[in-house]
């Protein structure tokens, strides 16, 4: 099993390199640094000098891959690729447009992002799995039918409306919690409860429907018939037999997103004014801050790959076939 994990780890490396190359191509090959400078500076102030100055300030004045002017290792290191892309592997993301260190900013903003994303994830998973179990238990009944209809209706509503509607009803009409903002300490729950609630509700539709399909697929299998032939009650069949097996496909979709929780949610954070990584990203996009977007892309894919590995590990926990086979 250890060999298996090591192999997965080794497999992750070329993927990270691939991601790095893709982002590099996107940010520096599709558009030259000159283009970016023109864009940032605005049409009016563009002079060749201003462009050069802009590039020099940000270290974009080097060649892309090979610096023939430099000597020794500098041929490769004194380049945009090395300075901007390769150094991300050691956690050096450079500076944002406002001059702040991106790495420090990211570590400061992870907390608020997690404070929203983690409860949303845990609560959402619990609620949807429970709901799906109820629907599967009462399968082919009216409850099941209307439950599915409700799910389809819920998943047909844009996430934006959940936030807008929630803010309007709970904060504006009923005035239960503040409409937006973030604070630390004991009062933090006031700011967290609404985004978490909205996050859970907006995910109910599609997740429940998906889990229900998985449960029903498992219920149709032969071993469930065996379990019933033992005289077990329907609840025992569902919890002891079906749930354990259904966990395997559910884990595929769920575990992989756990590390990505650090990234926060773009929508929720920007609507609620939460100083997390999601709103950081949105601000960067709106300000066209390429350095920040590049850093977030890289971190996102690292977290995704960590998620893939966590998925593999979690398989070995729930599926004995993998645990003993590798």
């Amino acid at each position, binding site marked *: 099993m250890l060999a298996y994990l090591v192999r997965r780890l080794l497999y992750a490396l070329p993927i990270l390199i691939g991601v790095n190359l893709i982002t590099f191509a996107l940010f520096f090959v599709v558009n030259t640094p000159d283009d970016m400078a023109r864009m940032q500076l605005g049409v009016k102030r563009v002079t060749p000098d201003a462009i050069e100055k802009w590039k020099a300030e940000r270290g974009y004045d080097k060649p892309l891959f090979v610096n023939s002017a430099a000597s020794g290792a500098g041929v490769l290191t004194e380049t945009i690729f090395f300075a901007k892309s390769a150094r991300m592997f050691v956690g050096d993301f450079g500076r944002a447009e406002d001059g702040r260190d991106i790495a420090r900013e990211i570590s400061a903003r992870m907390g608020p992002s997690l404070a929203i994303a983690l409860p949303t994830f845990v609560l959402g998973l619990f609620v949807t799995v429970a709901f799906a179990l109820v629907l599967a238990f009462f399968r082919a009944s009216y409850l099941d039918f209307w439950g599915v209809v409700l799910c*389809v209706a819920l998943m047909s509503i844009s*996430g934006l409306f959940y936030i807008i509607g929630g*803010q309007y009803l709970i904060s504006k009409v009923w005035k239960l919690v503040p409409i937006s903002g973030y604070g630390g300490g004991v009062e933090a729950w006031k700011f967290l409860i609404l985004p978490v609630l909205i996050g859970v509700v907006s995910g109910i539709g599609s997740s429940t429907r998906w889990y229900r399909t998985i449960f029903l697929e498992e219920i149709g299998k032969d071993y469930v018939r065996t379990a019933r032939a033992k005289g077990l009650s329907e609840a025992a069949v569902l919890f002891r037999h079906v749930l354990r097996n259904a966990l395997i496909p559910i884990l595929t979709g769920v575990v992989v997103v756990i590390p990505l929780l650090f990234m926060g949610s773009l929508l929720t954070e920007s609507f609620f004014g939460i100083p997390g990584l999601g709103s950081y990203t949105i601000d960067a996009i*709106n300000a066209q801050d390429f350095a920040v*977007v590049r850093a977030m892309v890289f971190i996102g894919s690292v977290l995704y*790959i960590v998620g893939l590995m966590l998925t593999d590990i979690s398989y070995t926990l729930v599926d004995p076939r993998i645990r003993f086979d590798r």
Partner: protein
Amino acid sequence: MNFLPVILWSDALIWLLVASALLLGWLSSRNPPLRAAWRRVGRHRPGMAAATVLLAFVLIGLLDSLHYRPALENKGEGKTAYAIEVLSLLDLVATPLRTRNEKTYSEPLATRAYAKEAIEVREADGSVRQTRDYPRLKHGGAHLGADEAGRAADVGRRLLQAGGAALLAWGTLAALAAGLLAHAEGTTQAAAWRRIWRGESDFAWNAVLGALAALFLVAFPLLALCGDYHVLGTDKVGQDVFYQVLKSVRTALVIGLVTTLVMLPLSIFLGILAGYFRGWVDDAIQYLYTTLNSIPGVLLIAAAVLMMQVVIDTHPQWFATAAERADLRLLALCFILGMTSWTGLCRLLRGEALKLRELEYIQAAQAFGVSDLRIISRHILPNLMHIVIIALVMDFSSLVLAEAVLSYVGIGVDPTMISFGTMINNARMELAREPMVWWSLAAAFAFMLALVLAANLLADAVRDAFDPRMAGAA
């Protein structure tokens, strides 16, 4: 000629899609298993009701996909000059909606503006007095003249008329359907009518007719009122919200359909290649999609859109009109969405192709020395078609939803292009206003829900009909 036809890139792709849908229909009608699957869709009641609603949206979208530039007033002889503005057939039909702009917000069916303003009132004695009041709208309810109190009666009368017209139109269509069924089955009209309403007909006529009734009851009153009122109000710059909603439909359809068009060839080609040939081809393709997949979707889209923006902004000379620029940006968005979303389907198709290639009928073909190309085209592809069709309809609704979010984040369509996303984005600032401006949001919400819900229901019907695993269940 007093207009110049303009074919935007997205128009071309949309009509290409229509052509390929017709081709698919023709191919399906010649292939019994596919025909049987489509018949199952036809029997699915919620699915057919949803299809009816979707068809209405598609008609609006198609009407909005025939563009032209009107000729300017021709002063002398010589070359005709054409307006810089690109209009569509829908714009032409909805000219009153498009042109009758107010100054700013007004409520649905209002005759006066939403906020008080300083207005000059000419007194009986001829003096001009300044007051603060809700100003009378330029167009909303203008036909009432001074009789603003008669608005309720006017609206009521129009509603009644529209309702009557809707019933009449629906009755005609229903009779037509019954006649058609009677003719096809060789029964009397009354018997066909009974079969329709008992749900015994092979095609879900009752669902289609029910959906049509609902559709007519919404559409006719809207149409009856929209000529003289702002039936869904106006937005900040005084534009009619109903017009915006109609224009948003095309944007949503383009995003939902053209994106799949971009992604399909890629995922089909690479998926089959990886699954059928295995070995290093498979390794390479798997590496490619795992890498792309590992970049969180929104961020990849954001990065790509940002870069595209730079390209567009630094090359203004490429675009003759603003519409062309917005259109190209829309298409680029479709491409970017397509490039980031082909991986899921590709993985699915690869897995299925892996399973298929081990099947005995493929081995039988190999035993005849049939070439790989023929095996793929005759054996693998046709047996993957159901997955492709299911993916196509399933993706549509999620793409429409994604457009709204992306436009909100600022990486969606051009801000000048009307879409559900831009509508919501513009309207959300007004939520904080007291009293609230709710109609833009409500209209976008209602129309989007109708569109996406219909798409989801149709997707369910298609999945049930095409998925061999589902055939036994349900």
